[in-house]
């Protein structure tokens, strides 16, 4: 019987050819090499997102660390989710960052300082794909109405709740909800037109 006996791990493992979803399955089986590979794929985007929301390097690192430990601890539950692995991971990162920014702002009683927008990174060959995705999403965002874009940006990057947003913009709550919905739906169509893979037609 060999079923219960794991083979010894090879000295080096090339996980680069595996899909994100396959890697998550390995993470669910406590494979830390697979976690490292997922970090290599998503760590940068995760950190940029957390930094944009939290505007503080130490807090952004905390958010990314907690999110990836969340991936480690709950990857088995991803298997039942109907989503791409990238969506699942980035959702964990976003939630963590939003939780932290809200907690931090409550603690300080005021919004976190706005830091200057970080400079766009050098576009090395390594980052070509990331850069392309960024341009596609930015391009699609720029085609939304200013009201839709504002609702998405303040909600997603600002960590504001819909009620805070309604108050800040002096708009009824229903208007904010509707802008978020129409903005996300339109963005989805634009990304699909631009050829960015969407798994739900």
């Amino acid at each position, binding site marked *: 019987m060999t079923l219960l006996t794991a083979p010894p791990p090879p000295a080096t493992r090339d996980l680069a050819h595996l899909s994100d979803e396959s890697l998550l399955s390995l993470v669910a089986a406590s494979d830390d090499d697979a976690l490292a590979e997922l*970090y290599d794929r998503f760590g940068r985007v995760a950190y940029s997102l957390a*930094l944009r929301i939290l505007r503080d390097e130490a807090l952004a690192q905390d958010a990314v660390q907690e999110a990836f430990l969340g991936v480690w*601890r709950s990857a088995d539950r991803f298997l039942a989710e109907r989503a791409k692995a990238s969506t699942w991971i980035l959702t964990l990162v976003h*939630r963590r960052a939003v939780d932290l920014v809200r907690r931090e702002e409550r603690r300080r009683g005021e919004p976190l300082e706005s830091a200057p927008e970080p400079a766009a990174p050098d576009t090395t060959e390594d980052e070509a794909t990331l850069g392309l995705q960024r341009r596609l999403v930015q391009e699609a965002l720029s085609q939304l109405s200013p009201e839709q874009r504002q609702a998405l940006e303040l909600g997603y990057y600002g960590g504001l709740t819909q009620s805070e947003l309604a108050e800040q913009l002096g708009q009824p709550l229903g208007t904010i909800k509707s802008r*978020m919905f129409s903005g996300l739906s339109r*963005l989805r169509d634009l990304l699909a037109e631009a050829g960015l893979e*969407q798994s739900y037609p």
Partner: protein
Amino acid sequence: MNDPHSLVAPYALDALDLQEEREFEEHLATCESCRQELARLRETAASLAYAAPGPAPPLALKERILDQARADRPNLVSLPRRRSWTAPLAAAAAVAAAAAIGLGVWGATRSTSTDPFAAVLAQSGARVVPMGDRGALAVAPDGSAAIALSAPNAPAGKTYEAWVIRNGTPKRAGLLSGTSTLRIQRPVGTGAVVAVTLERTGGVDRPTTPPVAQTRALS
């Protein structure tokens, strides 16, 4: 007052407060169209992450994460987190998740009475028994019981089948398609084990595959 359907986009953007979020997750547990809409909007929301330019994280962060992960092997039975991230679970699985982390009374106070899991939990003295991380069993003192299964949809030609096993003898207890709830069709008493296996459509007389979910022997 929020119309729950209207909360799907703010939820996808993590733009609800805790109270609204709970309300919406309860709604989500019973609304398939919101679950589908959420899956779509989540994906689009996550793509917004790519529009945030920023520096690379410090190299030490990766090592910190890996060190902590290695020091922290997950438990064999992991508990559901308070917030499910897309909450694709059926109503009872959400109840099971809440119950499994110690909020069992929630099930008894839920207003939805069509959910067999909630119905069993509403009985006096009922309790929740985990089935690994694939679901939970609610069992009442009179032996009535229900399963909340959280599992991918069974592939074509297959179904999940529940079993009540006593003294090593499995008895058929009903079929499930995936994430769903099931009233167990026979009493579940002390010493019994309840299990779920993947079988061919229509069910079989004896389990032919290893269980995807199983309780310990009930005390």
